[in-house]
């Protein structure tokens, strides 16, 4: 443990200041705090655990490089999420794996099955496929709102889209998902 930086007490902003003062290793505190959350979000947006890990690593490196531009009045987690969402978009656009071919995450499906039995595994696969079938903007909006549970203002800051546009995307995403998952017309 480095002197002067308690992992429990230092805020993200304090850690950032420490890194900017020259302490590269302090960045590890931010990684430890935000890595899992980022993985979860990336997984929802890019569809495979491998891609998720890569895109999260990329986002952390970009955040590190851009740390001088971080403004403390914004939450570090929101700033980092913005970078991550952006990387996910670039990654999805570049990857040959389009929405139709999301890699089924066998490990996580296994975990879901362990929690809820074989039905859970099937259900999880259905959800993955349905999410993958959404247009990227709708998927992104749905995931940020309902999986990450952000409010619309935070989502607007992260995606650069307006609140009403985001609400529309979430609504459309829900309608589409319902049709895909429950086979019903609303």
């Amino acid at each position, binding site marked *: 443990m480095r002197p002067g930086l308690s992992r429990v007490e230092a805020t993200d902003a304090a850690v950032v200041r420490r890194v*900017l003062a020259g302490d*590269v290793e302090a960045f590890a505190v931010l990684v430890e705090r935000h890595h899992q959350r980022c993985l979860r979000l990336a997984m929802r947006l890019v569809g495979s655990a491998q891609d998720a890990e890569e895109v999260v690593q990329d986002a*952390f*490196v970009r955040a590190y*490089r851009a740390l001088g531009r971080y403004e403390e009045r914004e939450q570090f987690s929101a700033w980092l999420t913005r970078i991550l969402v952006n990387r996910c978009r670039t990654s999805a656009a570049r990857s040959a794996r389009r929405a139709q071919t999301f890699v089924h995450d066998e490990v996580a499906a296994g975990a879901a099955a362990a929690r809820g039995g074989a039905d*859970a595994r099937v*259900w999880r696969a259905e959800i993955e496929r349905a999410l993958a079938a959404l247009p990227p903007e709708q998927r992104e909006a749905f995931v940020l709102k309902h999986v990450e549970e952000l409010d619309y203002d935070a989502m607007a800051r992260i995606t650069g889209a307006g609140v009403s546009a985001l609400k529309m995307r979430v609504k459309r995403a*829900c309608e589409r998902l319902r049709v895909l998952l429950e086979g019903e017309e609303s």
Partner: protein
Amino acid sequence: MTDEEREMRLAADVREALGNGPPSTPEARARVMEAVRAAGATPRAGASRPGWRSPGVGLLVAASIAGIIALVRARGLSYVPEPVPGINRPSQPVAAGAPTPARSVGAVSDNAAVRVQFVLVAPDAKSVAVVGDFNDWNPSATPLESARGMWSSEEVVTAGRHDYAFVIDGTRWIADPSAPQAPADELGGGYSVLIAGAKP
């Protein structure tokens, strides 16, 4: 059930089914830190103010160092600038100029040999090496020599584009802060690019 209630129920189902994503392991986090360390010099504070800033003192001095070195090379002198106090802080190596390839006589085909010089200002480093596609990324192959904290080495590489990085104290990989950057790829990385045979 209202629309909103249905939406909430769907959301809860999705959240539960998707779980927490892939687990964040110590190994994965260590890989992130490795990539971060390799990303180059510690970022500078205060770059968040909007608008154009006048160059910080560090930048001015780095530029003058580069200018001096360019002058030195042009005249074939062996002058070595004194380290400037307060600028060359520990663990913040500053490149004093991108590798300057010599001009080759005649057209430079992709196989011609070109002499280039690698330079890095790192007064607190115990060792600096350059690694790249010209030496199989081997940290032992091309050590730089230090003259009062300015590390340099002259090498011969084939003309054309090369990826490279500096390795400090045997373990820390960094990009050349004053060279064009290569994008990160599947290995992380994203170091520096040298075009040997191009005019500086």
